């Protein structure tokens, strides 16, 4: 009885704002459409059939997964070493917290502003190209800098690195410094310490950060749309466009499939680490 009481606040949030909407989407995905935004209540798997047999779906997933993996890799690289520096190289804990807070400063502005501010920097007549031209390093402006996959990854990495820093910082901060000292006394190299102590003990943070980054990139369409200059597309962007022509069932089926893909992905990440144990230890 008391346990039910304990979880009731969570349920009060989850049921109306998560379970019910998902159910609505699930139901819509098996309906038919009259082509004018009307839903015909039936049970059909045709919407799933259409999505799953379309080459477009696989191309979209390929693009989206590509951006996800690239973003994950670079945010992990940056996030891990920023956290490592803060925890193990900054001696003064107050200073470490201060620097940690400074990491969040760029996130006081909106995601969109942070993304758009890259455009004047990366454009044909942007700061980077003009600087390189003036220095005589290039003759023609580099076009791959903007409206390209490169630009998309830059924007994502800028937006999402903090989601890696925070959980990794958190798990590293709980590593007992004496373990590291003991390893040094026993003659371990820096690399060994990293490989055998720090990485394994930061695993939960890395896993959490990866879940954040992967699910955000997979579920986003706006950054891809703007930074690729419409030159690329994403899974969510495609079904958003279905909604714009009132093709609700097809869009719902795509959404359900994406949810399943994400669930599988998250559960795979969770298999590598026992989050519950790591958090409660």
């Amino acid at each position, binding site marked *: 009885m008391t346990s039910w009481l304990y979880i009731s606040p969570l349920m009060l949030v989850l049921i109306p704002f998560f379970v019910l909407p998902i159910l609505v989407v699930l139901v819509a995905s098996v309906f038919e459409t009259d082509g*004018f935004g009307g839903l015909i209540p039936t049970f059909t798997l045709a919407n799933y059939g259409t999505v799953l047999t379309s080459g477009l779906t696989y191309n*979209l997933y390929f693009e989206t997964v590509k951006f996800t993996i690239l973003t994950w890799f670079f945010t992990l690289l940056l996030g891990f070493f920023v956290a490592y520096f803060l925890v193990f190289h900054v001696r003064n804990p107050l200073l470490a917290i201060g620097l940690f807070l400074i990491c969040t400063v760029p996130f006081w502005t909106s995601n969109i502003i942070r993304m758009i501010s890259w455009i004047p920097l990366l454009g*044909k007549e942007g700061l980077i190209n003009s600087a390189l031209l003036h220095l005589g390093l290039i003759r023609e402006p580099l076009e791959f800098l903007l409206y390209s996959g490169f630009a998309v990854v830059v924007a994502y990495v800028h937006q999402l690195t903090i989601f890696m820093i925070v959980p990794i910082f958190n798990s590293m901060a709980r590593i007992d410094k004496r373990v590291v000292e003991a390893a040094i006394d026993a003659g371990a190299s820096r690399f060994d310490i990293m490989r055998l102590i720090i990485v394994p003990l930061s695993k939960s943070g890395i896993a959490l950060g990866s879940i954040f980054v992967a699910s955000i990139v997979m579920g986003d369409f706006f950054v891809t749309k703007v930074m690729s200059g*419409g*030159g690329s*597309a994403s899974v969510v962007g495609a079904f958003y466009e279905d909604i*714009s*022509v009132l093709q609700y069932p097809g869009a719902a089926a795509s959404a359900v499939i994406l949810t399943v893909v994400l669930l599988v992905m998250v559960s795979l990440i969770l298999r590598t680490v026992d989050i519950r144990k790591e958090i409660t230890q």
Partner: protein
Amino acid sequence: MTAKHNGKTGKSGKGIDRRSFLKAGAAVAGAAVGTDAITGFPTIWAQEIKDIELRHVGVSYSVVKAIGDQAAKDLGFKVTMQNLDTSAAINRFITQPNSVDIADLEGWQAKLAAKRGVIQGIEARKIKEFDNFLPIFTKGELDGHKIPRQGISPYEALYIAKPDATELHDGVTEWLTNVPQVYNADSIGYRPDLVGHTVTEWKDLIDPKFKGKAAILDVPAIGIMDAALCFESAGLIKYGNKGNMTKKEIDFTCDKLIELKKSGQFRATWTTFDQSVQLMAAGEVVIQSMWSPAVAAVRVKQIPCVYAPVNFKDGKEGYRGWCNGMGLMKHLSGKKLDAAYEYMNWYMSGWQGAFVSRYGYYSPVPSTAKKFMTPAEYTFWYEGKPAPEPVTDPYGVPMEVAGTVRDGGSFVERVTNISCWNTLMDESAYMNKRWNDFKVA
């Protein structure tokens, strides 16, 4: 004091008279401060209507806050303008019709809204200026020239047979789906200094000369029509109806777009007004499909930019036209419905027409808009003659120097060269899928 006094006298004649006298006086004063063309509510209604709020919902280039503010000032009730993109707007009209009072509809949206039964018929005879509407809208013609009906022309989307009809009616009736309020003819914007010749044909957009320096609109429903105009112009295909392509025509168009993309023709695609301005102003592209005020916005930055006149030539070319109108949501009734009619009549009375004309769009009733424009403005925007004095935008920012002629010429010349209208094709689901193939290629 007054309230106390009224409370004491209750329903006695004196209190009521005194109060309504004060309110009526205030309303008259308000009207006098505002514009003179607005008559409308009997002043006795003034206090009843001041609690009314009309929510006018639609895209940002059509539902403009400054216009709503002026309407509220002139009419004495509250007007809230809410902006959504085209897709979010139609979804809201259909799925949450009660959260909207006035729906700002394009022709194809009017057709869908009627079909879904979320709007009510508008009585033509209650629209005061209806007889002064340009016949483009009411009869589908202008100066004896039949306006093409590829896509959904405003005329085609205007009438329904009965107030609650769900199908559009071909031919004039007493009932309207919407009251047209703003429209224009779209074409290509280009940098004359970098393109090097005068552009009058859509095919220049896909000319390999501009490889990596061209852009196209990425709103599938209308982007595909711009592409179709290009391919038709280049003589690659002849469409039965660019506004309602067959699957085969869609395939041809999208395959061709993919081919162009792979050869590096497009620097980018754009979805919003600002993006198109930015692409052109930052030197990313030299030619792209564009909207009229975006061209003006580039020119304001002292960067030369021309809006290509794409007059008909050998049965090809022509502008892509669009028109937004106001639809009444079904739930409106009583005083709120009366207020909505007053609001629409206010729109047609000239202030709004003059406002939108100043950034290059047109009013369906130019005769009233003219009253609110300076002769110089009307000469420039509608008559297509050299501006006798500098022209400013609706907010007073200088736009054009004296002597400039509007790109494309006069109103009649531009509008009679419209070859197709924004639409939603029967095969829109298929078209969207193929458009995404283009995006992801």
